[in-house]
């Protein structure tokens, strides 16, 4: 029987209780949505007593479905003021499942000063331990210390100094399978600050002596379908640029079309994008002993991760992704991949969302605080976050805060959350997703690039956004969306898996219904939290400033946006 790990930071207790039957067929984003609706008042202070930090795995936790051990972290976001689900790869979900833990709920605020961590040992015993020795320790050093203390067969879920300082864009870092680098980020929406507000430094999970096995309604059917689906995904992944290169390959599609953000979303082209593109990346990997085609969790057949070394061949960063490269790179007019890799490392280390802070740096450049393209100056700003300077504090609270402080009129946020590496004028469906997703400006909620008709046109973009938002909502409850993208031709098999694991009929509406229900629950939660249609808007400058690359403006009207998530 699955357990919930209840971590009560007011009482300073941790205990395992049975995982509620009502959430039996839920996981990931869907579980977070329902749990939040049931247990967390929408009007609560995100950094207060009543907010909870939820950590869970997918509906297929404990099985052999590839990428089933994706970790979802949720709660009320101090950044957006609404519901947040932020997911990541890494090893932690696999070990939580191995320990029989389907979900961890962190609640309450401690009455006393202190810092704690939760430790789950190889026998499955759980303890809340004093972590004051690690106060101010950033993630890389923290993980090293955990390896010294508990060995390498562990996974960590931790915050760095940014989370401890309760920065609204603080991430929660998850250690990768293998070397254990804390480079997988549950980055969006400031969940690290919620964890920090509860004075929880980390959850450290040891590999269990005996791995928990879920109960199957029909084990044989599940196994057979799972084998088939894993094969389908592996076959698709063979031709997937994410496997063959890495997510950086996306820049080869966005760099020429005006979708790649350049110079704080000016809409211009940046011919130097090739300096931070796939070929440069592959050359640097090959010549420095770096690696791509890496897994971040056991059993992944997509293998999109990487290890990126510096000029001397020493480890610099891992999980080096398109969003970070696009937004620290061309969006800041920086064309040095090594500088960007250093920035990625700093962000993972102090635990901060690269998308948010990169947008903040671009705004800082636009307002003349540092020059465009000055990588060292940008690194200097990140150092200010680490050092906790006055400007560092601003940066740590997101690009909207920085933009307002510097008097910038061009702040690319929706629901206060910074946009990802896709200019909404040149991929309008993605812009529609940014505007209407309950998660804020979240590209993973429904990236429509290449899906509908012309990306710069209006035709079918609303349709594509709607369909993708539903798909991503259930995919984020089941597996990594990169694996999901490769299983779309065999999607009915997901219904077979649900039936094999949970019983009942193999009905695809059980799967798609998960997506619709999740979206509607999130929308309802946000409404109760005080959000209105006014929050479903793209910033004005995207509507008035034509992208010089294409001449396009974001011209999807409010009336059209208002019905995107009608079902």
């Amino acid at each position, binding site marked *: 029987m699955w357990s919930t790990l209840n971590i009560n930071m007011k009482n300073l207790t941790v205990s395992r209780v049975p995982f509620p039957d009502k959430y039996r067929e839920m996981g990931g984003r869907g579980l977070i949505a329902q749990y939040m609706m049931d247990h967390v008042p929408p009007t609560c202070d995100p950094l207060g007593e009543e907010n909870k930090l939820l950590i869970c795995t997918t509906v297929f936790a404990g099985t052999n479905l590839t990428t089933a051990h994706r970790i979802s972290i949720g709660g009320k976001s101090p950044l957006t003021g609404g519901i947040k689900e932020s997911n990541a790869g890494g090893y932690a979900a696999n070990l939580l499942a191995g320990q029989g833990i389907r979900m961890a709920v962190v609640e309450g605020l401690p009455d006393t000063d202190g810092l704690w961590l939760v430790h789950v040992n190889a026998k499955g015993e759980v303890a809340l331990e004093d972590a004051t020795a690690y106060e101010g320790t950033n993630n890389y050093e923290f993980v090293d210390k955990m390896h010294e203390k508990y060995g390498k067969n562990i996974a960590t879920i931790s915050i760095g100094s940014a989370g401890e300082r309760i920065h609204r864009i603080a991430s929660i870092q998850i250690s990768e399978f293998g070397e254990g680098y804390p480079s997988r980020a549950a980055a969006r929406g400031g969940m690290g600050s919620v964890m920090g507000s509860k004075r929880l430094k980390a959850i450290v999970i040891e590999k269990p002596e005996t791995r928990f096995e879920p109960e199957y309604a029909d084990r044989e059917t599940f196994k057979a379908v799972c084998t088939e689906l894993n094969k389908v995904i592996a076959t698709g992944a063979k031709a997937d640029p994410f496997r063959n290169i890495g997510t950086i390959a996306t820049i080869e599609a966005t760099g020429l079309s005006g979708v790649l953000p350049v110079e704080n979303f000016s809409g211009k082209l940046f011919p130097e994008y090739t300096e931070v593109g796939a070929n440069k990346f592959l050359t640097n990997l090959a010549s420095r002993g770096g690696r791509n085609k890496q897994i971040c969790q056991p059993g992944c057949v997509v293998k999109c991760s990487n290890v990126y070394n510096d000029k001397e061949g020493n480890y610099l960063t891992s999980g080096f992704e398109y969003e970070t490269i696009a937004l620290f790179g061309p969006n800041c007019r920086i064309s040095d991949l090594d500088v960007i890799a250093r920035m990625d490392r700093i962000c993972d280390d102090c635990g901060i969302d690269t998308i948010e802070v990169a947008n903040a740096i671009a705004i800082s450049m636009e307002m003349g605080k540092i020059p465009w393209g000055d990588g060292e100056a940008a690194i200097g700003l990140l150092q200010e976050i680490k050092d906790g300077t006055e400007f560092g504090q601003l940066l740590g609270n997101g690009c909207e805060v920085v933009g307002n402080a510097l008097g910038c009129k061009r702040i690319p946020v929706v629901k206060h959350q910074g946009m990802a590496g896709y200019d909404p004028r040149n991929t309008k469906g993605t812009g529609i997703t940014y505007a209407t997703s309950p998660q804020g400006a979240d590209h993973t909620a429904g990236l429509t690039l290449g899906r509908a008709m012309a990306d710069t046109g*209006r035709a*079918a973009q609303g349709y594509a956004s*709607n369909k993708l938002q539903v798909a991503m909502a259930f995919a984020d409850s089941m597996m990594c969306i990169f694996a999901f993208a490769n299983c779309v031709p065999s999607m009915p098999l997901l219904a077979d898996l649900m039936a094999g694991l949970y019983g009942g009929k193999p009905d695809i509406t059980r799967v798609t219904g998960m997506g619709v229900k999740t979206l509607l629950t999130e929308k309802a939660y946000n409404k109760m939290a005080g959000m209105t249609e006014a929050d479903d808007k793209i910033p004005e400058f995207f509507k008035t400033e034509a992208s010089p690359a294409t001449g396009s403006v974001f011209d999807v009207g409010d009336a059209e946006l208002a019905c*995107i998530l009608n079902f």
Partner: protein
Amino acid sequence: MITSYEVFVPALMGSGSSLRTGLKVRELGCNKVLVVYDKGLKDVGISDKIVENLNAARIETICFDGVLPDPPDIMIEGAAELAREGNIDGIVAVGGGSAIDTAKGINVLIHNQPPIAQYFGIRNDLKPGVPMVFLPTTSGTGSEVTNMCVITHMATGAKNSVTSRVCIGSIAILDPDLTLGLPSQITAATGFDAFCHAAEALTSGHENPLSDALARDAIRTISDYLPIAVTDGCNSIAREKMIIASMLAGMAFTNALVHLGHAFGHTIGARFHISHGIACAVALPQIIEFASVTESHKVRMIGECMDVEIAKDATPEEIGNLTSHAILKLKKDINMPTMKDLDFTLEDLLKIAPLVSQDLSFALSPRRMTTSQVAEILQVAYDANG
């Protein structure tokens, strides 16, 4: 907004223009053409006249008279085999949308391997075919000027389309004389199909100034002349106006696309086995009213082209309401079958609501519609008994 107008087919128009078919085919450099038509056209002698005209211009002809309505893919594949064996270097289609779409399908398979079903969708990668000349005898599908052909995939029973440069004709010959004998009911149904093309092209959210201009003219013309063509089929002026209006509507929609009217129309037509024009007509008034929320300025154009007086400060809802009533009136004026005539029960109609969203045209709606809104629209359409 940046828009584009890309699909353009040269046209020859006017009474007697079909007598230049042979000359035009010659000009295109063809020596041996496949002539595509249905048995009905043979029976009324129209196809023989075209074949004679071609032969007189010293163009060799192979005839395919097996065109079926809602062209089945296997029929097209058989005809394409005939075309390849005959080493033809041109195709002439004479007839309604089915004949023209058959010709287009054959053209897809001249240099691309069958089956044709593998090419459904928007295809920029097909090898070019041979020149095609289209002579519509209905007014109409507008297929003579579009870049798509609608085919029935017999294995699944579903209709789908191939949209490609290979489906674009080299010239359209619009001779109203070929439409003089068209029966009243078919005149009404095909004429209303053209109206739907124009109305949907205007409100698609994907429109452009050229399509808008073409669609407006089509709507004005159809409003004025379709009722006459229906009641007086021998009226050559009405027939001339209608064949041009149908072409204009086709030119408009092939660039600006259709949306909900055709999503409903395809679904209703497939489920109840009624003709395309009648099926698209079922819910059009209500759909235009729905679209008015986001496209009121375009819905106003539809209304004003139908001589509806719309106040300058009318709200989108008022504009939608007035225009939808005008469309309802047009349907009555051309004796379009009512719900009662079509023998639908409300229950039957509502059952198709979830299927409407499966049609590709649904994706192009300017304003997202939920399945329950589809059902509401069907209910309102049923109650209006239009």
